[in-house]
C-alpha cells in the first residue's frame, strides 16, 4: 500500500475507492466491537470515510489510513452518542452484542502461548485481525439463512451497498435491504455474541463461513439469470474475502482449499465466454486465455494445503481444478486422476451433483457408455430439475449415438435454463442431433 505522507500528493477518487474496499471491512469490524451495535458502527464508518474523502485530497493520505478511519469513526460515534442522549438507551440495549469480548482480554483465546513480548508489540494489529474474524462468524451465523449470510457479509465485510448487492444477485433492492435489516435485527434481538467460536464449535462454524464465500463466488461465476454469464464483481469479492480468511486462519486447510478453488476456477473466466457472450465449454476453451498467474498461485495453495493431510471437499475440488489447469490441451487432461479425486470427494461428501461430475469424468476417461452407466447410479429424483444433469445426459446420449433420447434430454435442459448464454449454448448443440 502506498502511504502518502501528510501533505503529500493529492489523491484521486480511484485511490480513495481502493482504500475504501480494503479497509471498510476491518474498520466496521472494529467499530462493532467498540460500539456493540452494527448500525451505529456502519454509520460511524460511513461518516469517517466521508470526512476522509473531503480531507485527504487536500492533506494527503495518512500513513495508516485504516487506523485513521477507525479512530475518526470511533470519535464521531462517541460524540454523537453524547449529543443524542435519546440514543443512549439503544446503545445500552445493544451493548450485548459485544460485551463478551469487551470485558475479557480479546486476544486470550486466539493467541494463547505466544511470546509475551511479541504480543505487546502487535497487540493493536491482532485485535483488529480478530475483529474481522468475529465479523465473518457473525455475518455467517448458522441461525441466519444462507441468503441473509451472503447479503450481510457483502454489506459489512465487503462494503457493498444494497443497490450493488441487489444488482449482483438480480434481486429487487428492497428485498436485499429487508434481508439485511432482518438479519441484523435477528442477531441483535437474539443477543448474538461478537466472538470467535471456541475450538469445539470452530469446524462447523468455519464450514458455514466457507459455504457463504463459496456461494458468493458461484453466484459471480455463473449468474442464475441476467444478461452476462459471469459477473466479475462477486467473484472478485469472494476471492478477496477468501484471502482475508486465509490470512486470518492460515492453519485451516479448507480455507486455503476454497481460495485455491476460486483462483483456479476464476483463472478460466476470460475463456468461458465467446465474443457473442455465449458459454464456451472447458474442452473448447482457448487455454492461452487462462490467467497463468492465478493458476500458479492456485497450484501453490493446493500443494500447501494437501501437504497438511487433512483433506476436505474444497481441497479436493481445488485439486480437480488444478488437474484441469495442468492440461495444455483438453485432450491431455488426466481424466483418470480426476475420477480418482471424484471418488475421494464422494467418500467425504456424497451428493448427486458430485456423482454427476464424476460421470462426466468417467465419460471422458472410458467413453460415453461408461459415462451413462456412471450416471445411472445417481438418484435421478435429486436432479430432476437440475439443468446440468440433463445437459450432461444429453451430451453423453448424443456421443453414444442415441439421437432421439439426446434431443429429448436437450429439450429438458433448455426448459430448465434461465441464463441466456447457457440457453444459447444448449440450443446451438441441440440441432446437431436432428441433422
Amino acid at each position: 500500500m502506498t502511504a502518502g505522507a501528510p501533505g503529500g500528493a493529492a489523491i484521486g477518487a480511484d485511490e480513495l475507492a481502493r482504500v475504501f474496499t480494503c479497509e471498510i471491512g476491518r474498520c466496521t469490524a472494529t467499530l462493532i466491537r467498540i460500539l456493540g451495535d452494527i448500525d451505529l458502527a456502519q454509520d460511524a464508518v460511513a461518516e469517517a470515510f466521508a470526512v476522509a474523502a473531503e480531507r485527504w485530497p487536500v492533506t494527503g493520505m495518512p500513513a495508516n489510513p485504516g487506523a485513521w478511519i477507525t479512530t475518526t469513526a470511533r470519535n464521531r460515534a462517541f460524540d454523537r452518542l453524547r449529543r443524542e442522549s435519546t440514543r443512549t438507551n439503544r446503545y445500552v440495549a445493544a451493548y450485548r452484542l459485544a460485551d463478551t469480548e469487551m470485558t475479557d482480554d480479546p486476544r486470550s483465546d486466539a493467541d494463547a502461548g505466544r511470546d509475551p513480548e511479541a504480543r505487546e508489540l502487535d497487540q493493536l494489529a491482532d485485535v483488529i485481525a480478530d475483529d474481522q474474524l468475529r465479523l465473518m462468524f457473525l455475518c455467517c451465523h448458522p441461525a441466519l439463512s444462507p441468503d441473509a449470510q451472503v447479503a450481510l457479509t457483502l454489506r459489512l465485510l465487503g462494503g457493498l451497498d444494497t443497490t450493488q448487492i441487489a444488482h449482483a444477485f438480480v434481486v429487487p433492492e428492497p428485498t436485499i435491504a429487508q434481508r439485511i435489516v432482518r438479519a441484523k435485527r435477528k442477531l441483535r434481538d437474539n443477543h448474538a455474541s461478537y466472538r470467535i467460536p471456541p475450538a469445539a464449535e470452530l469446524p462447523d462454524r468455519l464450514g458455514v463461513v466457507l459455504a457463504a464465500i463459496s456461494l458468493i463466488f458461484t453466484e459471480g461465476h455463473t449468474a442464475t439469470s441476467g444478461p452476462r454469464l459471469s459477473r466479475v464483481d462477486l467473484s472478485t469479492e469472494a476471492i478477496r474475502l477468501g484471502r482475508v480468511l486465509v490470512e486470518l486462519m492460515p492453519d485451516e486447510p479448507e480455507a486455503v482449499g476454497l481460495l485455491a478453488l476460486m483462483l483456479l476456477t476464476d483463472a478460466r473466466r476470460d475463456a468461458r465466454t465467446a465474443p457473442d457472450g455465449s458459454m464456451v465449454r472447458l474442452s473448447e476453451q482457448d487455454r492461452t486465455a487462462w490467467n497463468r498467474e492465478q493458476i500458479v498461485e492456485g497450484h501453490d495453495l493446493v500443494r500447501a494445503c494437501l501437504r497438511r493431510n487433512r483433506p476436505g471437499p474444497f481441497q479436493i475440488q481445488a485439486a480437480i481444478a488444478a488437474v484441469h489447469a495442468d492440461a495444455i490441451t483438453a485432450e491431455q487432461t488426466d481424466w483418470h486422476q480426476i475420477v480418482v479425486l471424484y471418488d475421494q470427494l464422494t467418500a467425504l461428501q456424497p451428493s448427486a451433483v458430485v456423482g454427476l461430475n464424476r460421470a462426466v469424468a468417467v465419460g471422458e476417461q472410458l467413453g460415453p457408455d461408461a459415462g451413462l452407466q456412471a450416471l445411472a447410479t445417481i438418484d435421478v429424483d435429486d436432479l430432476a430439475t437440475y439443468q446440468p444433469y440433463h445437459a450432461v445426459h444429453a451430451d453423453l446420449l448424443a456421443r453414444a449415438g442415441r439421437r432421439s433420447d439426446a434431443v429429448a434430454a436437450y429439450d429438458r435442459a433448455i426448459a430448465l435454463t434461465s441464463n441466456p448464454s447457457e440457453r444459447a449454448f444448449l440450443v446451438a448443440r441441440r440441432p446437431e442431433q436432428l441433422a
Partner: protein
Amino acid sequence: MAQYLMSVWHDEVYEDNDFDDPETQRLFAQVDAYNKAIETAGVWVFGGGLQPNTTATVLRAADGQVSMTDGPYAESKEQMGGFWVIDAPDLDAALDWAAKASAACEGPVELRPFQTG
C-alpha cells in the same frame, strides 16, 4: 444473561400420552435427564409439557364483552407440545441448549428471544 423461549413442536396431532407405553417412558426419561441438566446448569427458568391443543380455549375481549371459542387459536396440524423458558448468556449458548432439547424430545424445537426493556 438473556431469556429465551424454547418450544417443542409436534408435526402430528397428539392426543393423550400412553404412560404405559415403553416408547413414551423412554422419551420421558430422556426429557427428565435433560431437565436435570438444565436445572443444574442454572439455565432453567420455567418449563413443562402441555395437554393436547384440543383442550385449549381461545378468548377474545372486545367492547367489554368476552367471547370464548373451543379449540386452539391456530388451525394447523402442528402444535406446541411444551416449552421451556431459559436464561442463557448469549445466542450460541441458547442454541446449544435448544439443540440438546431437540435431541431429548426427538422433535423440532423453536428458539425465540424475549423482548428486553
